[in-house]
């Protein structure tokens, strides 16, 4: 793994980009790495553009705020691209060489000529996963799309182990401790927990989802 | 004070109406003989006590 990996997660409000970032950061810390995680700074509500950022490194991380030059971009909803629901347009700007893009969409999105050229010049790799469909099928709720996205991420990177990811997941939803990114995420945590009859069920189904996501991710040749 | 209230002890019956009408503390004192006296150096001469007194025992001295 390279010394520093900066990840930008873009999605729509309520999709769990902030929670995904938290779980990924926790997994990195559990793996003995250093991490900082922060959300996009907005009073964003449901379905408005939302972003969060994860920095993972083996060395001290000083930078704060938005990730302007990501190594990995994760797109949680096709509307981020197709409807331009993103405040970081043009979307791929800042992506580093050999960067990776993971998009939650049932089928490849129509990228235009200049976008394809931009990605090709960066030698970027583009992946698709139908994360929301998998979340509905396996976990029974679209609120688990973010977990499917994390499954996809560990399939194409060696940032954190699946075990660390599962532990981080259990920590986030397992205990009685409230994790607070914002007042609204705390409320959504409770909604998510209410979708599962038992915590064990939440964990089992989401672990199955991670497994399925790992095998479902597909690379799209640019 | 240039203007201060004074008491006619002969008319005073110690009813305390003047004391209750005075905006300043401990200016009108009631003595055991049921007569009031006025601390002239602290009286502001507003005349409220003069109006309050039903026996015309008080007056403003200037």
């Amino acid at each position, binding site marked *: 793994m390279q010394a520093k990996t900066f990840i930008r997660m873009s999605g729509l409000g309520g999709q769990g980009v902030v929670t995904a970032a938290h779980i990924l950061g*926790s997994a990195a810390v559990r793996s003995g790495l250093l991490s900082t995680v922060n959300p996009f700074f907005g009073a964003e509500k449901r379905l408005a553009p939302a972003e969060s950022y994860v920095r993972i490194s083996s060395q001290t991380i000083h930078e704060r705020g938005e990730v302007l030059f990501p190594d990995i971009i994760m797109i949680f909803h096709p509307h981020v691209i197709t409807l331009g629901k993103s405040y970081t347009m043009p979307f791929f700007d800042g992506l580093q060489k050999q960067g990776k893009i993971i998009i939650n969409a049932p089928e490849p999105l129509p990228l235009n000529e200049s976008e394809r050229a931009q990605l090709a010049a960066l030698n970027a790799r583009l992946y698709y996963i139908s994360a929301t469909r998998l979340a509905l099928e396996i976990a029974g709720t679209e609120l688990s799309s973010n977990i499917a996205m994390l499954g996809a991420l560990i399939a194409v990177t060696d940032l954190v182990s699946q075990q660390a990811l599962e532990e981080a997941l259990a920590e986030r939803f397992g205990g009685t401790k409230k994790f607070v990114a914002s007042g609204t995420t705390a409320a959504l945590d409770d909604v998510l927990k209410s979708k599962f009859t038992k915590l064990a069920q939440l964990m089992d189904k989401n672990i199955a989802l991670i497994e399925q996501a790992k095998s479902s991710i597909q690379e799209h040749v640019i | 004070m240039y203007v201060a209230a004074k008491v006619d002890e002969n008319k005073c019956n110690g009813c305390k109406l003047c004391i209750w009408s005075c905006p300043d503390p401990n200016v009108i004192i009631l003595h055991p003989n049921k007569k009031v006296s006025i601390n002239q150096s602290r009286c502001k001469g507003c005349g409220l006590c003069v109006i309050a007194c039903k026996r015309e025992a008080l007056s403003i001295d200037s």
Partner: protein
Amino acid sequence: MITQKIVDPDYLFFQSERSKMFITGSEAVSEAIKRANVDMAIAYPITPQSESMHLVGDLYAEGYLKDYFRGENEFSVMSAVAGAAMGGVRVFTATGGPGTMRAFEMFPTWAGARLPVVCAFFTRGVNSPLTIQPDTIEMAYMLDTGIMIFHAENAQDLYDMLLKAFVIAEQPEVHIPVGVFADGFFVTHTRDEVSTAPADLKLPAYDPYSSPVPVMDMNNVPLRQMRDPFVMKSNFISYAAHASWQQEVAAAAQRARRYIDHYLGGLVESENPGADIMIVASGTAVSQGRAAIIAAAGEGIDVGLLKIKCLRPFPTEEIKALTRHCKAIIVPEFNRIGWLAREIKAVVEDNSKVVDGPRVFGGMTMPTEMILESIRRCSA
């Protein structure tokens, strides 16, 4: 609620075994307050502060605090905090941005009334159009209210500074408020590793009778006591009393220096102090500066850093000494007006070497590259 043991502040801060938590700045506030033996907290929501006072509310529900409520606006909250402090309890609140502005009349009043209130400020823009984004402009207005001002770089600083602020503020010869400032979102909403003391330890309680002014409880003398009367009327004697009073509040902040040195390890902290180019910064700008130093080293440019932890009292002598040798002083800031650059220019011996900026504001992140650009220009 965990049963907590009262320990000496030095033990809590320096000797107790620490453990690491992966938490946001807001959660770091809660961890600090949990160990601070706070009697009472008063809350009012404002982004990006709200989460921290939600969590303090949870501490109250668990039994760590004896009282907690939501006030009706920031001015009232800061007023209620003043009332509680005059009643002799240890009290905490937090606000930021427009909330700071709404409450502003209270801050000089806190200082003048010698209240050891600790308040966290999570900075955000205050202009129209409305913004919730990080911007440190409110700190410029706060600098001369008479309260002490600490500026946290990250969640770790926030945790440490808040806990230590109570101890510093409550020293009998200090006894003025402390504002612990942290950059909204960059600190409040950023999750980071924070090392904390065991949760079963807490600070000793506040002793209101060591206050330099009488506590308003009708249980101490003098009974004929008003806090704080207009020192009556227009004459030289009254002016002298007012002037002396103001000087005394400023003197109290000077007396805090030794405690800031002891507990925070100094008003400033430096990295690579011999370098020709120095970055002088406070808050999140310090972190961005650290990243820029690493990047500059990669290009063979030697850059040092001076982190200002305490802005009031201002580390005049420290800054003078640590910048005397260098050729350029870069002052990165998260506000348009450059209040820190002004402060630095006023104290360094040759202020022509102070570089105004770089600055971002309105919520922007300051890319490392922006500071690196300034470094390159200075080294050319």
